[in-house]
């Protein structure tokens, strides 16, 4: 396990904060007796309280009531539950609207509905990655069961105008789901101002544990469960709770809430340093809107180089960055990111995309070192490449 590597892939996952680990250890360590939250006895009650404290913390992050928060085992599951669950709760309506740049957790859920007879409208984005607002408005229909657009994109980091989108859905009486997995902890989220029906979160994107997600479900929104069984989480998500993980999530969102502004300022400065340093090389181009983007995301297409080579070259030099979307990158085969294609990029541009995402603990020195390594890697790999750089 490399301890000396500089981690610049916070969009894929974040390191666990020490204070989060501490909160988890309260439930995990042998010094305390942990129960099943469903049990009547004292250890069960203690586990239940741990879960409820975390629920209150997550609710506070998005300005909701604790009773409006459900825990899941991932952002993916939260997205699935929202898209499938909102649709299932309105069996008469058979139309779904999503953006063309959603995470696979949403696109695959929509495809799943499509396979069972739903019609799915995919609203396009501009070359900057921002959704076509009037296209979205036109896509909404009386038989639309659910619409879903992400708050911020996991690949290019583009932030969508969710407040407008939510408003349009609200007026039309259409349940609106927002995937806020990348946005949470980086942008202020206030469900009292943005009329979403559901909103997905994931702990491991904000220094919490992997394998813990949450779904905000507005009081009154109707939802059918995806996972059924013992009736945990008000029957909307059965299965014995990951109590330690949930405790960690609670600690992580508490920190995210308190440090939001500070983190944003810190990350933006580093992000901008990476952008200006990297794009000063010829044939290196920033993907996604330059301003409407996450505080920590830099997404680059590097002419003449395939992303995998660049990622592993940088890895060999001690820098961990992402290639396109982490979720797809280790799967077999060679598929251009649908997000970049939707933005009008060519396949080659998509294949050459790398994502550098800084974090709250990334330092200026690390960014400087990275820019050196990046220049070396790009230069060296271009020497190998059959590709000749266009005059810039």
């Amino acid at each position, binding site marked *: 396990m490399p301890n000396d590597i500089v981690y610049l892939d916070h969009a894929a996952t974040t390191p666990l904060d020490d204070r989060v680990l501490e909160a988890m250890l309260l439930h995990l360590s042998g010094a305390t007796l942990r129960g099943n939250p469903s049990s009547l006895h004292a250890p069960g009650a203690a586990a239940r309280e741990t879960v409820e404290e975390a629920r209150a913390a997550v609710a506070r992050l998005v300005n909701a009531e604790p009773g409006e928060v459900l825990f899941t085992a991932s952002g993916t599951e939260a997205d699935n539950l929202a898209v499938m669950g909102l649709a299932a709760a309105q069996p008469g309506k058979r139309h779904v609207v999503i953006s063309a740049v959603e995470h696979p957790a949403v696109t695959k859920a929509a495809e799943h509905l499509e396979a069972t007879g739903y019609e799915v409208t995919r609203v396009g984005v501009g070359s900057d990655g921002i959704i076509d607002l009037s296209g979205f408005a036109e896509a909404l229909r009386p038989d639309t069961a659910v619409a879903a657009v992400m708050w911020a994109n996991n690949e290019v980091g583009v932030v969508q105008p969710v407040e407008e989108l939510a408003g349009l859905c609200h007026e039309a009486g259409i349940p609106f789901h927002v995937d806020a997995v990348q946005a949470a902890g980086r942008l202020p989220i206030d469900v009292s101002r943005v009329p979403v029906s559901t909103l997905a979160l994931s702990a491991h994107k904000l220094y919490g544990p992997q394998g813990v997600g949450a779904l905000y479900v507005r009081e009154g929104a109707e939802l059918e469960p995806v996972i059924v069984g013992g009736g945990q989480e008000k029957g909307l998500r059965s299965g014995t709770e990951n109590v330690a993980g949930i405790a960690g999530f609670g600690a992580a969102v508490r920190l995210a809430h308190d440090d939001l502004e500070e983190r944003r300022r810190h990350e933006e400065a580093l992000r901008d340093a990476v952008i200006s340093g990297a794009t000063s090389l010829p044939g290196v181009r920033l993907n996604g809107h330059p301003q409407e983007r996450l505080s920590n995301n830099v997404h680059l297409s590097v002419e*003449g180089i*395939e992303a*995998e*080579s660049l990622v*592993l*070259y940088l*890895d*060999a*030099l001690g820098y961990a960055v992402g290639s396109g979307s982490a979720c797809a990158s280790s799967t*077999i*085969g*060679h598929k251009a990111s649908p997000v970049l294609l939707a933005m009008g990029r060519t*396949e*080659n541009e998509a294949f050459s995309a790398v994502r550098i995402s800084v974090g709250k603990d990334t330092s200026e020195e690390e960014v400087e070192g990275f820019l050196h390594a990046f220049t070396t890697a790009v230069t*060296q*790999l271009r*020497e*190998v*490449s*059959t*590709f000749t750089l266009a005059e810039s």
Partner: protein
Amino acid sequence: MAERYNPQVIEHLVRPRNVGELEAPSGLGESGDNACGDVARFAVAIEENRLLEVRYKVYGCVACIAAGSALSELARDRHLLEAARVSRDDLVDALGGPLPEGKEHALTLVLDALHKAFEDHWNKKAGTMLVDDYARGADNDG
């Protein structure tokens, strides 16, 4: 099945051997498809049926770059017949073992490009005689 690249692959990625082109190559070979995917290009300098120099370039995944580099090392400074017989297995050995699932195409890509460079050379030289030699040599294989 390997889950990730062997260190030998990464070593070839970071320090690829025989990268580049040749001023007056005896033969040139290219394989793959520039439009959507990987491309390998080999240039060879041959004298008296000996592969004096080999240079390569690749646009593609890590496996392609490393396989090109490893192949150039295995083939260089050898008799043409030996160089032509470098096999997928030889490459796998040179790369420290099997490539990750889905990456085996890299072996074909670079071997194809090198073989095409040889063909190019033979075509230029009307190398039919040489091919006969090769066939006889191949009888000795197992």
